[in-house]
């Protein structure tokens, strides 16, 4: 029998706000244990949570970007469970009236285009961190992460392959980063994914019994866990056994999922309305102002770059992979740089310099005017490409003054024809072997001669001019 895998995702995203969702403690990552805490986020009796306006804005912005309808009258609920990472014994979340519902995300995979429906998006608080100390057999609790704002984005069971899941997560990450609502660092846990998976005979429309997989902290782990869990379920069914609805943990080292000790009745969360937080009523004016402020997203930019500048698909993809890069590109074009030149510099030198320094595009000092000036100087023939790259390296970290650097180091391109001619003649006279090789048909010998002339002129000549002069002299 042929089987079909059916997958739904629950993605938790940590929002990039300065403060926690219900108190004014910092959300900064790290810090000594329990130093980013107060009576609200440690669940002291009588403490009053107050929602951060930024969390609401970010959640609504994300809902709009995912094509959701925004819930005009929304509220919070208590999800009750006992676990020491949650000192109040309940998590403040949204069950009955989540902030956004019924969205859609279009994804593209090698197998074709798909639309993934978004069931809902809600706001909630993160839990603390537990560390078990094997020496004392006690568990240490650090509540620094407790109360960090999260949005949970729940899809319908619309995925059929791991490729589709990865394509969706990549698109989601790109969107959230463009919106500036999260940095989406999987290693730091700011993007976390639970995978609900079931299998069914191909062609059937009912849903099989599903399992939920947790602890998936990379795209690679997600893809492997999906493959393994689908195989495990198919094998069970083909052996005449049953799939049990349970939560399974992915063990990256063992490349397998295993059932988590099922806490008895753990699913009975006894939700009820959170009395400490008044409801939220959103006006049309508020939604309109957020809609108007939505940035152009990566996909729209790619489409526009293709249409307006005729850039190849690959270039469009690379320069929109990060909002800061796309903004640099747009800045360059606005300052008159030819779009293809701008794209080449970004894909080559800029990305190279960033990766060599282990830096993110948003943290770079380089501004559009500086790079635009370099590109212009190359275009005017006042700087050759190789020298320009050296100048780029020199100004990249500080957004230094291109013209000052060129003046100080005497790097401006030599457009002194007589000097190039004289140097070329000298080089030819000193290297009769290369000359003979070239004349005997070895085209490669020319490259060596160009290199020698360039060296003599300290790299300041235009290699194309040197090439032409040498060919002319050698033809004589």
């Amino acid at each position: 029998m042929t089987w079909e895998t059916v997958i739904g995702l629950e993605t938790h995203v940590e929002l990039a706000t300065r403060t926690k969702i219900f108190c004014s403690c910092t959300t900064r990552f790290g810090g000594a244990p329990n130093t980013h805490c107060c009576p609200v986020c440690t669940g002291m009796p009588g403490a009053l949570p107050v929602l951060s306006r930024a969390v609401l804005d970010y959640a609504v912005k994300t809902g709009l970007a995912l094509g959701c309808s925004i819930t005009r009258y929304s509220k919070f609920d208590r999800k009750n469970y006992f676990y020491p990472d949650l000192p109040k014994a309940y998590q403040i979340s949204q069950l009955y009236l989540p902030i956004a519902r019924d969205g859609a995300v279009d994804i593209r995979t090698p197998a074709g285009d798909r639309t993934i429906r978004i069931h809902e998006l809600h706001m909630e608080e993160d839990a603390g961190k537990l560390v078990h100390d094997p020496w004392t057999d006690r568990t240490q609790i650090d509540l620094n992460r407790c109360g960090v704002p999260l949005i949970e984005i729940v899809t319908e069971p619309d995925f059929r392959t791991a490729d589709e899941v990865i394509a969706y997560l990549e698109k989601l990450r790109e969107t959230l980063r463009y919106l500036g609502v999260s940095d989406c660092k999987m290693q730091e846990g700011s993007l976390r994914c639970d995978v609900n998976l079931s299998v069914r005979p191909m062609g059937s429309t009912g849903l099989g019994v599903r399992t939920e997989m947790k602890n998936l902290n990379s795209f690679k782990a997600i893809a492997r866990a999906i493959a393994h869990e689908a195989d495990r379920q198919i094998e069970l069914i083909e052996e005449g056994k049953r799939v049990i609805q349970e939560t399974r943990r992915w063990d990256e080292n063992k490349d397998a999922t295993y059932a988590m000790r099922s806490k008895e009745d753990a699913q009975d969360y006894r939700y009820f309305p959170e009395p400490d937080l008044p409801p939220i009523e959103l006006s049309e004016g508020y939604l309109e102002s957020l809609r108007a402020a939505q940035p152009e997203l990566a996909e729209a930019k790619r489409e526009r770059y293709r249409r307006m500048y005729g850039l190849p698909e690959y270039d469009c993809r690379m320069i929109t992979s990060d909002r800061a890069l796309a903004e640099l590109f747009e800045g360059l074009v606005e300052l008159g740089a030819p779009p293809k030149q701008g794209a080449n510099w970004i894909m080559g030198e800029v990305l190279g310099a960033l990766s060599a320094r282990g830096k993110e595009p948003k943290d770079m000092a380089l501004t559009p005017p500086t790079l635009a000036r370099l590109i212009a100087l190359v275009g005017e023939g006042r700087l050759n490409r190789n020298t320009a790259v050296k100048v780029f390296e020199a100004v990249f970290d500080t957004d230094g003054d291109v013209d000052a650097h060129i003046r100080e180091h005497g790097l401006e391109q030599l457009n002194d024809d007589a000097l190039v001619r004289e140097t070329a003649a000298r080089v030819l006279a000193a290297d009769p072997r290369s000359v003979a090789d070239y004349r005997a048909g070895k085209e490669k010998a020319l490259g060596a001669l160009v290199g020698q002339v360039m060296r003599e002129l300290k790299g300041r000549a235009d290699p194309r001019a040197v090439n032409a002069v040498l060919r002319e002299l050698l033809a004589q």
Partner: protein
Amino acid sequence: MKITTELVDHICGLSCLELQTEEKQDMTAQLEQIVAYMDVLNELDTTGIEPMSHVFPLKNVLREDEELPSQDRAELLACAPASDGEAFLVPKAVE
């Protein structure tokens, strides 16, 4: 709604409470009384009335995203039964 011993066991499980047989019997009777009070409210005809989640006419109570100093750690830890000076301590809870 009938409160049974099984239901009390279930609630104890959810609440991490261990009760003696006698206590359970007391609890069953008390819960029965509390729930019976809800039946009085259920006698009211509420057709067409919006369920209310909050009694105060408040909405959109929000704060700005501005950091304030957190509480002194020693003071927070002092509120818990056990700590090691850095972290709260509880009996083994990690699998």
